[in-house]
């Protein structure tokens, strides 16, 4: 969906060419990146692999038209402790503006217990107790120009929101509400992937920086709040093994170069571009290099795809009918695709834990 907002500048105003270095209408942009969700920092690490653009391209001003970008990410920060936490307090006071708030990791449910914390960063000055990640999101999201959830934990809950989890973990949009809008009327931007494909994320950030600088229209997102140009196609549609599928020629053991659908690959119903783009520099990926697609970009991940190594239901049906019944298959897949684009029902805010875990040491 294209949202109302800034429109592209008209042709006469294009800033490139001989006047490329004229100042951006916004001088500086701050990216505050919270890694203190229930995550593994794998998205931060993944993004250091990006080259289109790389972090240093963006920070050192190697892309034309961009404002000066300040990145505050704990994995890379020069500052430590309070000097680092100062950025959080400055952001809260509106001193970092415009602010792109990036959230990494699932959002735990802190309301299901009477004390303690599942995830926290920094300390409360009065109590000496840690400040929860949820509290920081509450304080900072209203100050942001854009809010980005990076990786499948932050977007939809992911692994830590699996059935039976003790923390009641959920995605950022579950926590803030799917209708959340920033002060500039942008929805949350979700860039899923476990971890996020490096260039998918940096490209999205670059887009948002152009948006902040008034050089791009509002970011196009689908219903799951994913950038449409990155997640509009399925793994299968981009897979270089799809030719084997078409010929009904399937791998029956791992290590075969043929189509992996019968070995557990969910590619036909999963929204992801990794088979087109590779993992980095065009190298690696999933089914294209022998790894079954476990659907790690999807709202239904992981529960709706486990056990991962079993053939997906309907996989053999549609693979038998391959070719001749194209339209029927597309319709069947649309139904499955719709189902796996929904999160399991236990990922929600509120005081009740409904994941299936029954705690004895806290309220639950």
């Amino acid at each position: 969906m294209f949202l109302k907002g800034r429109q592209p500048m008209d042709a006469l105003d294009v800033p490139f060419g001989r006047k490329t270095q004229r100042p951006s209408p916004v001088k500086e942009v701050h990216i505050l990146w919270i890694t203190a969700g229930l995550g593994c920092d794998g998205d931060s690490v993944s993004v250091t692999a990006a080259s289109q653009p790389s972090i240093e391209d963006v920070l050192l001003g190697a892309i034309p038209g961009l404002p000066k970008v300040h990145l505050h990410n704990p994995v890379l920060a020069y500052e430590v402790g309070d000097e680092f936490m100062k950025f959080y307090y400055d952001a809260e006071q509106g001193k970092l503006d415009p602010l792109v708030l990036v959230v990494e990791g699932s959002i735990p449910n802190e309301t299901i217990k009477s004390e303690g914390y599942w995830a926290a960063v920094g300390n409360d000055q009065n109590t000496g107790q840690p400040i929860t990640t949820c509290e920081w999101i509450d304080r900072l999201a209203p100050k942001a120009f854009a809010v980005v959830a990076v990786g499948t934990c932050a977007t939809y809950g992911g692994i830590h929101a699996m059935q039976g989890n003790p923390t009641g973990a959920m995605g950022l949009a579950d926590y803030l509400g799917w209708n959340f809008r920033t002060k500039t009327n942008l929805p949350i931007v979700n860039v899923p992937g476990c971890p996020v494909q490096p260039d998918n994320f940096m490209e999205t950030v670059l887009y948002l920086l152009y948006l902040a600088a008034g050089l791009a229209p509002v970011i196009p997102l689908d219903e799951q709040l994913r950038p449409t140009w990155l997640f509009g196609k399925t793994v299968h549609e981009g897979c270089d093994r799809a030719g084997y599928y078409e010929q009904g020629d399937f791998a029956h053991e791992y290590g075969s170069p043929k189509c992996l659908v019968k070995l557990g690959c969910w590619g036909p119903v999963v929204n992801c571009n990794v088979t087109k783009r590779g993992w980095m520099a065009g190298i690696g990926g999933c089914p294209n290099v022998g790894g079954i697609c476990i659907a790690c970009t999807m709202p239904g991940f992981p529960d709706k795809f486990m056990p991962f190594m079993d053939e997906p239901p309907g996989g053999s049906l549609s693979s038998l009918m391959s070719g001749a019944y194209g339209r029927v298959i597309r319709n069947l897949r649309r139904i499955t695709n719709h189902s796996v684009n929904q999160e399991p029902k236990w990922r929600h805010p509120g005081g009740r834990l409904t994941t299936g875990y029954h705690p004895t040491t806290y309220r639950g």
Partner: protein
Amino acid sequence: MTATMTGSQFEGKAEVQPTPPNETGKSKLVEMSWDPITRIVGSLGIYTKIDFEAKKVAECYSTSSIFRGYSIFMKGKDPRDAHFITSRICGICGDNHATCACYAQNMAFGIKPPPIADMIVNLGEAAEYMFDHNIFQDNLVGVDFCEQMVRETNPSVLAKAEKTECPHAKDHGFKTIADIMRSLNPFTGEFYREALQMSRLTREMFCLMEGRHVHPSTLYPGGVGTVPTIQLFTDYLTRLMKYVEFMKKVVPLHDDLFDFFYQALPGYEKVGQRRILLGCWGAFQDPFECDYRYDHMTDWGRKMFVTPGVVVDGKLVTTDLVDINLNIRILLGSSYYEDWADKAPMFVHQDPLGNPVDKRHPWNQTTTPRPQKRDFGGKYTWVMSPRWLDKRTGDHLALDTGGGPIARLWATALAGLVDIGYIKATGQSVKIYLPKTVSKPEVEFEWKIPKWSNAIERDRARTYFQAYAAACALHFCEQAMQELYKGNTKTFTEFKVPNEAIGCGFHEAVRGVLSHHVVIRGGKIANYHPYPPTPWNANPRDVYGTPGPYEDAVQNTPIFEENGPAKFKGIDIMRTVRSFDPCLPCGVHMYTGNGKTLEVRHVPMFGAQHG
């Protein structure tokens, strides 16, 4: 909380022994904490009391502020999913978890992958070490030694660095030590950017073998999905040789930098020093020796290309993985969990060899979280306290991994078992031989057992282990090409999930020991406990009062920083903690207090109110 902090972090800590007064009859303890510690992976806080007059750290507590509950939500899941799930424990060494989980699955399922599959995993894991040590050393730790940092913390050291010529200038191209430091400045430094770029090349190598970084797509119990082709190994080898060339610059560069700190700051060997208590669980299976059977584990463990071992006070206590396994104990004491030992059922009474298994062994652990307020006098972290029982003394040793490389090289050197052409373990050292590259001739590096287990030597070992991993990769690449030429391209062994089984995997995550223990009942996971390196390093005081390795290494660390309490950055403490390569998704977070003096009195007590 900068400059406005009130309320002591140590409230409730009334039982602490008073610090002895120093020679002036007075002792000043200043509460200093760093939370979060940045330039690590995950959430770690370090809380200290510093005696600025005696210039040393008096007390240290390490805390982690994240709990996720893997051992809970894995219960009842399909055992084949274990490696996909546990990879997500860690965002920088997830593949180490996936690999270790596959090792445990192979044992539980009773299968042995074809040799070329083990070689492909070894090549992937070698690329992971090359990548991860590189980015951590030169983009995260390196910043603690960069010109900007040294200027802010020790201007006199920077002045000395400007005048100190590099002994190995011809090998790495930097004339003075200060030139190296400038090159390490974040983003603007030339070597910083070169290292970052190199970390991408090595990740490409990784993706060739394991599909994706950091959560691999092509690993399975029974083998790999990677298709072995001439192109696959050529693409890997050509990138590897660029890294080999890079190593010929990086090893002498770090030797010069680290030697300079000993020279510029006499006594720097005390920073981060602790008793030599090192654990290494071994890495790189020998594809022709390892059958993944528990009853053969002692033998195939000793064939690994990084030798497993426990080193206590410089002596090699064991290289036997069965011995290592049976003596792991998970203790509580300061962690937010309910004790299980007398309540929960025992899952495993005996190992497959008939040896008894303790109730505090990971096979028998039950994880029950009890979230609560943080109290440095009681419970203060989500990390548990793994220990290794030394049967000779009955001590529960707080082994550390030293960030991985120092323990790996130390155990491998003493064992003297590895001899693969590119590498030879001599009994006192490890020799690494690297072939000719584009612009540099062949070289021999020798890592010699150091005098201390301290911050500088942990960091130095990391650089040498990068070269070690590259040398191993050359060997594995040759092995894999030979298999390919013979036509042995099958990469997978079929299996059925048994109804009842147990398994364990031992591996080296990048930053140290990694074990996975699984119990299968009714074809599902009944119990699963991974023990990554950071719980070993970042843990709190255990039930016996023994502090964890970070706490122990930071306590009594001398302070060389020239700033007083008001502008204190804690650089010597940072170097200590980062030398362990903290990675707290598996286990901690540092916080710098406002530098206010908490109390000035003859017998300082914790918990006093301050302004």
